[in-house]
Structure formats: structure tokens, C-alpha cells
């Protein structure tokens, strides 16, 4: 493996010998608009990586470049030690799963799954065996002779998964595979895709705009915004230690306050003072997740006060019952703050207009520098 470094001419290859897919300055522009801008990313072998971002952030464009369906304007795509940037899709050996399933409507389920093997001139007997295996993996053996349109959305997506995996691709690419499914099925498929990916140990890239999917399924989350990487990290990293205000507000819900830091660990937000971790200075944004805040009766507030706690008082303006959650909107000196609490049989709902106090731990406060 020593000569690999010399051949590729890039020092990073020898550093991460486990890197399976590497994007080097990957760029795609359409005229003057930049869809993906100099993206660098390394995906280790066997990991499931999510590309997470709002629509138009370039995540799908990135995936389609990896699949060879879009030609990059600049940069390289490297699999193992092979530069595949200029390789046509049909030689890339990547399994692709689409949001719209994209099954061949004129072929049976078994024929759909067999297609990739037939393209590889696999012997007939082996095709039959592997198609059976693949359909068993997604629990669809019984439907082998059905046409795609006779199947439900979830079943169709499982066929698409079997079809992509039966060719034993080097990398599995999933483009919003769960977005067309209803909520219950989505949860099921999430676990199913994760289980299959783990048991095969296959490297996979998963494009989604749904933070729950990204956090719950993936080893690593790549948050993208406007064609650039915003943060790359484990789900816990991205959620608990967001690198930017964008990541904090996109991954999970959050309350946002603007203020001026004094440099002594406190921030002035209007007339209020909020304690934050560290000693930042200048203009800052403060973020607190709704479920980190406790809602207290105004008179009980004194007892909750302490060194490590922020305490603000306000007036309750709205209560929303969401089943498992209660959402409170509290007006704190003109700023609205949302608090989420587990709902206990709908008991203990406070009435709108009552004075309340908000308490949260200083360490749960996220601070970001803000220009001007």
C-alpha cells in the first residue's frame, strides 16, 4: 500500500487508509450560480453518511455527481485509490436508490432485481439465487412475480433497495429514499435501511432534508448550506455542539436571542442578562433548545435560581397540546421563547396570561459570534 501515496500524489490518502469515498474540491456551477462549491469530504469504509440540508443546498447535486449523473465543473471524486471523476455512471458500480423508487414499470419485481446482474453477464442460475437472496433480505420473496404498480410505496422502495444492493455495489447512494412514504412506514424503513447497511458493512451516502433521519440513521452527518459544508460530525456533535447558528437552527428546534457579550460570561439581551459558557465578547447570538428550558410558576422561581442556571421571567402567551408534548410560548420582555415539556395526560397545563419563569442550565446555552 506504500506506493499508493506516490501514485495518487495526495498525502491524505496514506493518512486515512480507510477512506472509501473522497471528494476533493468538488464543484458544480450552472452559468453564474454555484450549486456545489469546492466540497471536500472523506467517507470511511462501511460508514453511513448523511448529506443534510434545506432544498437547494447542493446535497442532491453532490450525490448525483458521485453517481456520475452530473458532470462536475471542478474537483475530483476518488473511490479507494481510483479517480472516477470522468467515469460514466454504468461503470461506477454504485447502487442508487431514488425518492421516486424508479423501478422499471414493465418488469416484474424479480426482473427488476435481476437487471443489474444481467448487465454484468452473471450466469442464469446465480442470478436466480442472488435475486432470491436479495428479495429475502427485504422480505419480499412472495411478491417476486408482481409488477411494481401492484406494490405499495414501502414495498416498491424495498424492491429498489434490493435492486441496488444485489449487484454488491462498492457504494450505496440514497437520494431522499423515505420522503415519499408515510410517517409510520418511514420509521420502519429507517431501521430497515440502517440494519441492512450495517449487516453488509457497505459504505453509503444518504441525502435528506429531514434531520431526524440524518441523526437517527447515520454515523456521520454532513450539514450543507448554499453549496458549502457547514459542519461535519457525528449526530451528537452536530446536535449538541453545532458549529454555526445555521446548524443549530436547522438540526433541531431552537430559540434565538441576540445580545451583546460583556466578556465576563454574561450577555445583555435587552434589559435581561443571560449567563453563557466561556467568556465571549462582542455581538453574539444565543440559542437554547426548547426542551432544555423548564417552565416554572413565577413564585416558585426563586428556589430554582443558582450559579449554573439562567432564570428569566415572562408571561405565557400560548399553549399548544401536541399529544406527547406541550408547547408553551412565553413572552420575555418582548421576545418570544418556545418551551417544550413532556405532556402528562394533559395535566398541569398553565393558563394563558399567567406570569411564569424560565430556567435552563448555563451549559445548555449556545453562543455564536455575530457581525454587527
Amino acid at each position, binding site marked *: 500500500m506504500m506506493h499508493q501515496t506516490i501514485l495518487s500524489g495526495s498525502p491524505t490518502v496514506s493518512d486515512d487508509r480507510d477512506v472509501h469515498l473522497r471528494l476533493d474540491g468538488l464543484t458544480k456551477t450552472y452559468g453564474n450560480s454555484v450549486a456545489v462549491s469546492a466540497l471536500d469530504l472523506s467517507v470511511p469504509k462501511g460508514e453511513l453518511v448523511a448529506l443534510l440540508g434545506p432544498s437547494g443546498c447542493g446535497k442532491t447535486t453532490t450525490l448525483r455527481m458521485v*453517481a*456520475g*449523473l452530473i458532470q462536475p465543473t471542478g474537483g475530483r471524486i476518488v473511490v479507494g485509490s481510483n479517480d472516477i471523476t470522468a467515469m*460514466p*455512471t*454504468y*461503470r*461506477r*458500480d*454504485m*447502487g*442508487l436508490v*431514488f425518492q*421516486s423508487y*424508479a*423501478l*422499471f*414499470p*414493465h418488469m416484474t419485481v424479480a426482473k427488476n432485481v435481476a*437487471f*443489474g446482474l444481467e*448487465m*454484468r453477464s452473471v450466469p442464469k442460475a446465480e442470478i436466480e439465487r442472488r435475486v432470491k437472496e436479495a428479495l429475502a433480505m427485504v422480505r419480499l420473496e412472495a411478491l417476486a412475480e408482481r409488477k411494481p404498480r401492484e406494490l405499495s410505496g414501502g414495498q416498491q422502495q424495498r424492491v*429498489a433497495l434490493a*435492486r*441496488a444492493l444485489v*449487484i454488491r455495489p462498492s457504494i450505496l*447512494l440514497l437520494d431522499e429514499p423515505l420522503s415519499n412514504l408515510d410517517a409510520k412506514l418511514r420509521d420502519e424503513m429507517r431501521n430497515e435501511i440502517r440494519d441492512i447497511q450495517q449487516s453488509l458493512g457497505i459504505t453509503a451516502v444518504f441525502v435528506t432534508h429531514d434531520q431526524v433521519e440524518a441523526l437517527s440513521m447515520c454515523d456521520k452527518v454532513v450539514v450543507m448550506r448554499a453549496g458549502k459544508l457547514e459542519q461535519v460530525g457525528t449526530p451528537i456533535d452536530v446536535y449538541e455542539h453545532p458549529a454555526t447558528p445555521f446548524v443549530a437552527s436547522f438540526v433541531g428546534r431552537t430559540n434565538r436571542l441576540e445580545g451583546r457579550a460583556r466578556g465576563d460570561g454574561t450577555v445583555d439581551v435587552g434589559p435581561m442578562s443571560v449567563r453563557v459558557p466561556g467568556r465571549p465578547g462582542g455581538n453574539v447570538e444565543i440559542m437554547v433548545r426548547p426542551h432544555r428550558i423548564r417552565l416554572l410558576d413565577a413564585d416558585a422561581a426563586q428556589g430554582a435560581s443558582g450559579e449554573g442556571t439562567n432564570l428569566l421571567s415572562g408571561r405565557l402567551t400560548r399553549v399548544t397540546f401536541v399529544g406527547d408534548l406541550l408547547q408553551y410560548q412565553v413572552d420575555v420582555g418582548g421576545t418570544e421563547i418556545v418551551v417544550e415539556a413532556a405532556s402528562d395526560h394533559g395535566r398541569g397545563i398553565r393558563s394563558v396570561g399567567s406570569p411564569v419563569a424560565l430556567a435552563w442550565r448555563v451549559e445548555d446555552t449556545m453562543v455564536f459570534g455575530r457581525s454587527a
Partner: protein
Amino acid sequence: MTAITASAPPAAPRLALGRTGTAIALLLPIALINAIGFILPVLNLLRMSFNEALAGGGVRETVTFENWTGLFGDSFYVELILNSITVSLSITLATLVVSYPIALYLHRSTGRWRTFLTVLVISPLLTSAVVRTYGWIALLADQGPIVSGIAALGFAPPRLMFNTTGVIIGLTEILMPYMILSLLAGFGRLDPRVEEAAMSLGAPPIKTFWRVILPLTVPGIALGCLLCFVLAVSSFITPKLLGGGRVFLLATEIYDQAIVTLNWPLAATLSMLVLIIFGAALAVYARILRAID
């Protein structure tokens, strides 16, 4: 608060017809027009085909099968029928081959470019087939640009007019808009994602075409071929002009028998035969659609 008591607007006056009654009432006009304008004349033709033709254009009301038996006993007519079918099939195939790439490109283009191309494809229909046929006569004539061009390259100048070749060339071009529009109408199942899926599974472009694109466009192909075949069998101006009286097809023969020779019973028999051929074409079309479903 008075709004609450306001009643619903008065019901529109309704004819005392049930659902079926309404359906019949709505269908009646077109049914009448069809009966008077199509079914009656066809029945009249059918009746005429059993009449006896007299010399000098007379017709004697009778019931004879001579027109029909004479048709299949005469090698001229048997050949005419077979020739009509093969020429029409050749035209249909040629139209399909030249139209398919255009339709596929049109299907994939978007926005204003697509609108522009669609208008371009339909625009020949704004000119009558007669005018376009004369255009082809100018192009295909012995002294025309195509023949003299081929001769200038050192090849033996071919005859492109007053023969079957000329008829096929002219009708192929004239029928192209119909074929392209039919193909486009039938391309609905063609999803670019499905093609991408095929490529990701290792199918190079040619294999993607044969295994995925072509099978998915069969409905459009079947529709276009049915339409063009029917139009080719029944077209007579273009074969008449480009064939120069030397290409004998059913449609031109019907014209000759009805207008020139004044043998109406024979013309009627040939017309019924054309109708039978259409019926057969429709049956094949229905079979294809059933087979792919």
C-alpha cells in the same frame, strides 16, 4: 346574525332526467351526426358492393357476390391489395424510424425550446398535403436537386419519382407530424429517473435504450403506427401525384373506379376492403396494448 337564516340559493331549474337520461341526452347529437354522416353511408357502400355494375356507369340493384369473388380471383387486385399493405407498412416503419429520435429529443427538451420545437413539428400541418406533394415533386424530379446532386457525386442517378420510392418518401414526410405527436403522447411512462436507475445498474446507453426506453415507449409506438398506417392506406393525392399513375394502391384505385371508370359497385367493394384492413389494424393495436399491460 341574519346570515344564519338565509336559505341556500334557489335550485337551478332541472330537467326531469335521471343520470342515464342525461347521458343519453348528451350523447344524442353526436350519435345522430355519426349515424347520418358515417354509419348510413357505410351501410350504403356495403349495399352497393353487392350491386351489379353495368357498362357505361350504370348500377343495377341486385344481390350478387361477383364484385367480391371477382376481386380475389383477379391477380391484379390481389397484388394491388398486397402492394397497398406493404407500401403502407413501409411508410409506417420509415415514419417511425425518422420520427422516434425527434420525439425522444422533444420529450427531453424543456421550456421555450420545447415549445418552439413542438410548433416546428406541427407547422407542416398548416400546409395542405397537395402543396407539400408538389414540393416533393420539385425536389425528387429527374432534374431536381437531389437526383442531380447524387449524379454529381458520380453515382448513377436514381429514379425517385413516379415509382413506389417517391410515394414512400413523400408520405413519410407528410405523416411525420402525426407520428411525432402520437409518440409524444405515449412517452408518458418514460421517467428520466428510470433511465438513470438502469445506468446505475450497469447498463450502457445502448442497453438502456433496448431494455428500458424502447419497451416503455411501446404505447406511443403502437398508437403512432396505427394512425400512420391508416392514413397511409387511405391517402390518395400523394400516391396519385408522386406515383405518376404507375403506382397502384387501394385508395387510388377506388378513386379511378368511382370517378373515371364509374364502376361504383367495385369502388364500394374496394372501400369495404379498406375498412376491413383498418379493422384488422385496430385489432393488432388492441392486442399490443393488452400484451404490454
